[in-house]
C-alpha cells in the first residue's frame, strides 16, 4: 500500500493502481472518458488531468493525466487546483465543439456520462462559433443504434469491441477531427457482445435499439435486480419497466460473475415478456374433449375446478423445470410429494447433470466462477461451444489468455493498468487455450490449438491429457500419434500453469467428455495446482433443479403410462422441447388432467386442461442456481396485468383448492410470501440450506423503510391516470421483498442484492458503479455475490473415471447427429424477442465436405430432412471442421423439437430438390 496526498489530505491506496482509480476509489470526483475499470488506461481523452507536485515545497506543479500516472508512495496531487480545473473544463469545451446539443431527444439523456462530466467540470459557455462536423450514421442491426455526430472520440467502443471482445467489424476510420467509429459499411454488428457498447460509450453514439422501440425517459423507469434466465451462467442484470412493458436490460455489476459486461442474448432477450404470445388469462377446458379450446374463466372458478380435479385424481405427478425458480419447483414438489416430482428434463440430461453434480460434490476441485475463469492461466475446453452456449464465459476466456503474457509485462515493469503499453508489450502473445469441439466459431482463432472431432474422440483426448499429467489418472492406450502429441502439449501447458481451468458441458450430450474433464482436473489437483472446473449446463436453473432432486421426464411418462397417476402439473416447461413428439402426445393424451403453469404459449400449453398464466422473471421473485452452483435472487420489477402471478403462488392456490380446508393446511398451501417459499426451499435439500443467505428477507428494512424501485426523479406519477381520476392510488404492495413499487423509501448503502440502479449524485450513468466500490473494479462494498452451494469436501480424488469410449467410427449409412447450440435461437425464451429473432440464422445441417460428396450434396443447397416423425427444411453447410461421420444440426426454433445426439440414416432422411422432382 502507498500513501498519496490529494489536496493536502492523505489517502492510503494500492500502489499498483493509477491515480485516477485511486482517487475514484476514495470517492473523489475526477472526470474521465477513455479510461474504463475493466479496460485500463490509454491517455486519449485528457479529461482526468490533475496537478502533480514534486514535493511539499513545489508550488507550481505540472498537469498530469491521473489515469496514466502510477499511485506511487508520496505522490502529491491536487484535483481542485485552479489550473487543473480550468484545463479539464477546456477539455469538455473541445469535446463540445462538435457534439450536437440534442440532449432532449437523445436516448442517452438522463444517464449520459458526458452530461455528468460536463456538469462536473463546470463548462457552461460555448465559445466555438464555427460549423460542426457531421457524419452519416450506419444501420448496425437490431440491437444497436448509431449516431456518430455525438461521438467524443474516446476510443472506448473499439477498445471494447476489438481488444476486449474479439470483434472485427467495428473500427475507427479517418483521422484528425474527422474520425469515424463504425463498420466498413452498414450492416449488423457481428460480435456477440455488441450490446455492451451501449454502456461502454460515454454518450449516445451507440444506444440500445430495443429500448428505442419503446423508449421512455430513464428516470421514469421502474427497475429491479434480476438474474439473466437465458443461459446457465447467471449474469446479474437490472430489468427496467414502465407502463407494464419491460423496456430494457442493463448490466448489474457482480465482481464474481458478470463484472461489467453481458452478452447480447442476455441483454436483448428480454422482450419475450412483452410478447403477444404471453398467456395473460387463466384458461380451462370445461369438457374433457381436448379438441375443444380452453376458455378464459375467472380465477376463483378456474381454481375451484382445478381443485376439484386434483381431489378426484388417481395420483398427481408434477413436472418441474430447469427454467423455473427453485421456489416454484419446491412448491410443485411440496404439492405432489417428492416421490411424484420429476425434474422435467430428459433422461440423458438428467444423467449428465447428476454426473456433474457428483464430480463437484465428491471431487477435490471446485467449480469456477466467471471471475475465476478470467484469472485462469491455462484453459482446456472439452466439447462445449462456449461462444454459443455460455457466451459470457467465452468473453472471460478472451481475458484469461492475457494472464500468462502478463509475466512479461511485469518483468518490463509496465503497470497492468497501462493498457496500451501492455498491448504493445504483449503483441500477439497468448496464454494457453485449447478448444476441442465440433463446431467452428471465430472464438477458435484465439486458441493455442484446436481439435475438431466427435464427442467420443474429444473425451479420449481429455482422458489422454489426464493420462499425460499422470498422478494415477488412467491413460488411453490406442491413440494416433497426432492426438497423443496434442494431448502431451495440452498436458504440458496445463501443468505449467498455476490456475488451470477445465471446461466441459452438457451441450454435446456426452457423458465421457464430462468424466474426462474431471480426470484432467483431478490429476492437476494431485500435482499441487489449483485447478478449477466449469460445466456449462443447459438452462438457468439446471443446477438448482438437480440439487433439489427428482427423476427424469421418463419417470413421469412411465407413471402415467402405468396408470400410477392420471393428473399432471407441468411447471414452466414445454415438454415437446424435451422428448419426441409421439411420446409427449401419448403422455398428454393418456393423462386425465393436464395443468400447465407457464408464461408463453407453446405446444404443451395448448394441451392444458387448466392453463395458469405464470409470471416471468420480471414479474416474480425467486432464486436460481447457476452452473457454478451459485444461488442468486431475482426480484419482481413490476406488477403484471391480467391473471398473471408467480408460479409458486399458483401452486399454493392449487394446493389450497385441493385441500378445501381452511385449517390444517400443510406444505405449500401455508406459504404466505416469498420468505415462506425460501424457508421451505432451504429445508427441501441439505445443499439448499443456505438459500436464505442469498439476499435479505422481505422483512429487511433500513431505518424502517423499504427500498424504492423507482428513481428519485420519477416524474408525472400523479398525472398517470389523471384522465380517470385525480386521486393518486396507493402503490401496489410487495409482500415478498424489501423493495417497494414506489419512489419513496431508503436511498443509501445497501446489501448488493438490493441495489437495482447504480446512481450517485453527479453520476447518473452506469459509471456510478465506481461509487459502490472500495476499490474501483473490485467487489461492491458489502457485496453479497450469491451463495456457492457446492464446495469441495475432500482433497482426495474419488475413483478415476475409466469408462473410456472407443474411437469414433463413422458408419457407412448413418451419421451421428450432433446438436449445435446457437447464441441466437438456441434458447426458448429469448427466441420470442423480436430483436433476437432477427438474428437467428436459418436452420442448417452441417457436414464434412467428404460426407457432402458421399451424400451428393452441394454446399448451401436446401434439403428436406425427415426425422423423428417431422420433416424439416434446412440448408446444407459443408464445413471442414465438422468431424467426418457426424452431422451438426443447429438448435434454432424450427428444430427445437429435434433430439440429438442420435444416429440417423441420412441417405434415407434427406430429400433434395432433385429427388423431390424425381419423386
Amino acid at each position, binding site marked *: 500500500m502507498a500513501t498519496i496526498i490529494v489536496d493536502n489530505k492523505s489517502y492510503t491506496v494500492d500502489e499498483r493502481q493509477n491515480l485516477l482509480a485511486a482517487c475514484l476509489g476514495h470517492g473523489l470526483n475526477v472526470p474521465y472518458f477513455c479510461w474504463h475499470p475493466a479496460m485500463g488506461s*490509454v*491517455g*486519449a*481523452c*485528457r*479529461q482526468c*488531468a490533475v496537478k502533480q507536485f514534486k514535493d511539499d515545497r513545489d508550488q507550481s506543479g*505540472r*498537469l*498530469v493525466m491521473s489515469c*496514466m500516472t502510477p499511485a506511487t508512495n508520496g505522490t502529491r496531487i491536487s484535483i481542485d487546483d485552479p489550473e487543473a480545473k480550468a*484545463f479539464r473544463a*477546456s*477539455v469538455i469545451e*473541445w*469535446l463540445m*465543439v*462538435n457534439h450536437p446539443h440534442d440532449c432532449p431527444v437523445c436516448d442517452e439523456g438522463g444517464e449520459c456520462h458526458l452530461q455528468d462530466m460536463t456538469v462536473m467540470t463546470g463548462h457552461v459557455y460555448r*465559445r*466555438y462559433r*464555427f460549423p460542426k462536423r457531421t457524419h452519416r450514421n450506419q444501420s448496425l442491426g437490431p440491437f444497436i443504434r448509431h449516431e456518430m455526430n455525438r461521438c*467524443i*472520440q474516446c*476510443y472506448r467502443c473499439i477498445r471494447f469491441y476489438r481488444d476486449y471482445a474479439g470483434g472485427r467489424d467495428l473500427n*475507427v476510420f*479517418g*483521422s*484528425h*477531427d*474527422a*474520425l469515424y467509429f463504425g463498420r466498413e459499411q452498414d450492416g449488423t454488428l457481428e460480435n456477440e457482445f455488441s450490446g455492451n457498447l451501449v454502456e461502454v460509450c460515454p454518450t449516445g453514439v451507440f444506444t440500445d435499439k430495443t429500448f428505442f422501440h419503446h423508449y421512455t425517459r430513464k428516470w421514469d423507469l421502474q427497475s429491479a435486480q434480476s438474474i439473466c434466465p437465458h443461459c446457465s451462467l447467471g449474469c446479474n442484470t437490472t430489468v427496467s419497466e414502465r407502463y407494464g412493458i419491460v423496456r430494457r436490460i442493463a448490466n448489474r455489476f457482480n465482481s464474481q460473475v458478470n463484472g461489467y459486461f453481458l452478452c447480447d442474448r442476455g441483454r436483448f432477450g428480454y422482450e419475450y415478456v412483452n410478447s403477444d404470445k404471453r398467456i395473460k388469462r387463466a384458461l380451462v377446458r370445461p369438457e374433457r374433449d381436448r379438441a375443444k379450446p380452453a376458455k378464459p374463466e375467472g380465477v376463483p372458478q378456474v381454481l375451484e375446478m382445478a381443485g376439484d380435479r386434483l381431489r378426484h385424481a388417481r395420483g398427481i405427478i408434477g413436472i418441474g423445470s430447469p427454467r423455473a425458480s427453485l421456489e416454484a419447483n419446491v412448491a410443485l414438489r411440496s404439492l405432489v410429494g417428492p416421490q411424484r416430482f420429476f425434474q422435467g428434463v430428459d433422461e440423458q440430461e438428467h444423467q449428465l447433470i447428476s454426473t456433474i453434480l457428483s464430480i463437484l460434490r465428491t471431487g477435490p476441485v471446485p467449480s469456477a466462477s466467471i471471475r475465476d475463469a478470467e484469472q485462469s492461466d491455462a484453459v482446456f475446453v472439452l466439447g462445449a461451444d462456449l461462444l454459443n452456449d455460455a457466451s459470457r464465459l467465452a468473453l472471460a476466456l478472451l481475458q484469461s489468455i492475457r494472464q500468462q503474457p502478463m509475466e512479461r509485462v511485469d518483468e*518490463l515493469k*509496465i503497470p497492468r493498468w*497501462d493498457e*496500451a*503499453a501492455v498491448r*504493445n*508489450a*504483449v*503483441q500477439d*502473445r497468448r496464454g494457453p487455450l485449447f478448444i476441442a469441439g465440433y463446431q467452428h466459431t471465430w472464438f477458435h482463432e484465439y486458441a493455442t490449438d484446436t481439435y475438431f472431432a466427435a464427442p467420443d474422440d474429444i473425451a479420449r483426448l481429455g482422458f489422454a491429457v489426464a493420462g499425460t499429467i499422470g498422478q494415477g489418472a488412467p491413460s488411453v492406450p490406442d491413440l494416433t500419434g497426432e492426438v497423443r502429441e496434442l494431448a502431451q502439449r495440452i498436458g504440458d501447458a496445463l501443468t505449467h500453469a498455476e490456475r488451470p481451468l477445465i471446461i466441459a458441458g452438457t451441450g454435446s450430450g456426452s457423458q465421457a467428455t464430462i468424466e474426462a474433464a474431471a480426470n484432467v482436473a483431478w490429476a492437476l489437483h494431485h500435482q499441487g495446482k489449483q485447478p478449477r472446473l466449469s460445466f456449462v449446463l443447459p438452462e438457468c436453473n439446471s443446477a438448482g433443479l438437480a440439487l433439489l432432486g427428482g427423476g427424469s421426464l421418463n419417470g413421469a411418462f412411465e407413471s402415467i403410462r402405468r396408470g400410477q397417476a392420471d393428473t399432471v402439473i407441468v411447471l414452466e416447461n414445454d415438454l415437446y422441447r424435451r422428448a419426441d413428439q409421439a411420446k409427449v402426445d401419448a403422455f398428454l393424451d393418456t393423462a386425465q388432467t393436464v395443468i400447465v403453469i407457464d408464461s408463453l404459449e407453446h405446444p404443451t400449453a395448448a394441451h392444458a386442461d387448466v392453463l395458469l398464466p405464470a409470471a416471468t422473471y420480471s414479474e416474480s421473485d425467486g432464486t436460481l442456481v447457476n452452473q457454478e452452483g451459485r444461488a442468486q435472487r431475482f426480484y419482481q420489477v413490476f406488477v403484471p396485468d391480467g391473471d398473471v402471478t408467480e408460479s409458486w403462488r399458483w401452486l399454493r392456490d392449487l394446493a389450497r383448492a385441493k385441500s378445501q380446508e381452511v385449517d390444517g393446511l400443510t406444505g405449500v398451501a401455508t406459504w404466505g410470501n416469498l420468505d415462506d417459499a425460501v424457508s421451505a426451499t432451504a429445508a427441501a435439500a441439505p445443499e439448499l440450506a443456505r438459500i436464505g443467505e442469498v439476499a435479505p428477507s422481505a422483512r429487511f428494512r433500513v431505518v424502517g423503510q423499504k427500498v424504492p424501485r423507482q428513481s428519485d426523479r420519477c416524474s408525472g406519477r400523479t398525472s398517470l391516470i389523471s384522465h380517470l381520476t385525480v386521486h393518486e392510488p396507493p402503490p401496489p404492495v410487495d409482500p415478498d421483498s424489501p423493495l417497494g413499487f414506489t419512489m419513496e423509501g431508503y436511498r443509501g448503502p445497501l446489501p448488493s442484492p438490493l441495489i437495482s440502479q447504480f446512481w450517485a449524485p453527479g453520476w447518473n450513468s452506469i459509471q456510478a458503479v465506481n461509487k459502490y466500490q472500495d476499490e474501483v473494479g473490485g467487489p461492491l462494498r458489502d457485496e453479497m455475490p450469491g451463495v456457492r452451494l457446492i464446495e469441495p469436501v475432500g482433497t482426495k480424488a474419488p475413483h478415476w473415471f475409466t469408462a473410456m469410449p472407443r474411437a469414433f467410427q463413422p458408419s457407412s449409412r448413418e451419421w451421428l447427429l450432433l446438436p449445435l447450440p446457437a447464441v441466437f435461437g438456441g434458447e426458448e425464451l429469448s427466441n420470442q424477442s423480436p430483436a433476437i429473432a432477427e438474428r437467428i440464422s436459418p436452420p442448417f445441417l452441417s457436414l464434412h465436405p467428404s460426407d457432402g460428396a458421399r451424400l451428393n450434396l452441394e454446399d448451401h443447397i436446401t434439403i428436406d430432412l425427415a426425422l423423428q416423425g417431422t420433416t424439416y427444411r434446412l440448408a446444407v453447410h459443408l464445413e471442414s471442421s465438422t468431424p467426418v461421420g457426424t452431422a451438426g444440426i443447429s438448435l434454432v426454433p424450427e428444430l427445437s423439437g429435434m433430439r440429438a445426439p442420435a444416429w440417423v440414416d441420412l441417405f434415407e432422411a434427406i430429400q433434395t430438390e432433385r429427388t423431390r422432382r424425381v419423386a
Partner: protein
Amino acid sequence: MERPLTQHIHPDGTTRTLREYVKEGGYRCLERLAAGLAPKDVQRLVTEAGLRGRGGGGFRTGTKWSFVPMGPDAPKPKYIVANGDEMEPGTFKDRVLMEGDPHGLVEGMILAGYAIDAEIGYIFLRGEYHLSAQRLNQAIAEAYAEGYLGKPLPGTGFRFDLHLHASAGRYICGEETALINALEGKRAVPRAKPPFPQTVGLWGQPTIVQNVETLYNLPHIINHGADWYHRLSRTQDGGTKIYGISGRVTNPGWWELPLGITARELLERHARGMADGVRFRGLLPGGISTAFMTEEHLDLPMDFSSIPPEIGRLGTGTMIILDDQTCPVGFVLNLEKFFARESCGWCTPCREGLPWVAKLLTSFEAGRATSDDLSLLEMHAKWLAPGHTFCGLAPGAMAPLQSALKYFHDDFERHITSGGCPWSRKSAQRRILV
C-alpha cells in the same frame, strides 16, 4: 571546412554508386568492427563524439542507445529503425542524403544495428520520396550482393538485415512511436511513454528509432574518432549539420556547415541576404514546429545547446524565412491548417483544438475576428503544452503561434481593427462582402 556527409554528393543530382562509395572510404569501418571494435566500443565512441539526434529533438544518441538491454539475456530480436519520414515542411536534408548517397544510410544502419546488437533494420521512408526509395532499394540490393547485409560480417559474427518501408503518408509518422505503430500495420497513433521504444518498441521488442542524418554521421565517427568529430563543430556538441534556408532570400538552398554557426552567417553569407525589395522579419529555425526567431536572435549559434528554451529550439536546422511582404497571420494559418489536418485524432486537445485554431486564424484573415478570438488563440497556446497533450505534435503546432502572438501581436490586432488582412489586396473588397 570539412563536409564529411556531403562532400562526395554529386552536384548534378545523380547518385553515388557503390563503387564510388567504397573507393572513397565507404564500408571501411566494417573492417574496424572486424578488428575487434565491440558494440560497447561503438556506443562509447558515439557518446564521446557528442552526437545528438538530427531529427529535431537533439537527444544524445549515445544516451539513447544506453537504454537498450544488452548482453546474452537481452530480448531478441532487437530492431533499428531509420526515421526517413521527412515530412517537416521546409525540411529536405534527409532527402539530399538519401538521394545522393544511399549507401551512407545502409552503412550507418549496419553500424547502429551493431552497436545495439539489433539484427534487423527498417528504413521508414516518406511515401513521396520515390527517388530515395528507388536509390535506397538499389543500394540495399547491392549491399546484400556484396555481403554487407544478410551475411555475418567477417570477424564479428554479426549479421544484419535491412528492409525499406515506404510510409502511407502522415506527418505523425515522424513521431517515433507512431512510426512504430505504422510499421506494425496499426494506426499511426503515438504510444505513451514509458515504456520507451528502447525496451518495448517494434513488435514489443527493444528498438532504436534514429533520424537519417544522425545515422549518416556514424561511419565518420567510427573512422575518424571522437576528437576529430568534435573539431568539426563550433560548439560543445560534435559534428556538422545540414542547414537549409527557404523563403525570399537571394540564394535559397542547403549547406553542410559546422554545428553552431549563427543564423546571421547562414542568412547573409550562405543565402546571400534577403531578396530584393523584401526585409527580414523572422525565421522558423528548423521546421514549422519551432518558434519564430527575430532580428535580435540572429547571432545565436544554431545548435542544440545555445538557444534558450524560452526563445525556441533548433529543430531540423532548415529554416523558413518570414519577410515583411508576407502576412504573419496568414503564414501561421497555413502552418496551423497543416497541423490540424495532420493531427492523428487520438487526444482531445490536439484533435479539437488545432482545427479550432485554424478556423480562428481563418477568420482573422477574413476580417471576422474579434479580440475574444485573440484570447482563444492564447488559450490554445497555453493549454496545448507538453504533457497536456499525448505527444509533441500540438505543442509543436503552438510554437509558431505562440511566438507569432508575441512578436507580431500588432499584426494580429491590425487584422481585427482593419477588418481584414492588411497584406491582402482583396481585403477591401472582402470587407464589403462581409
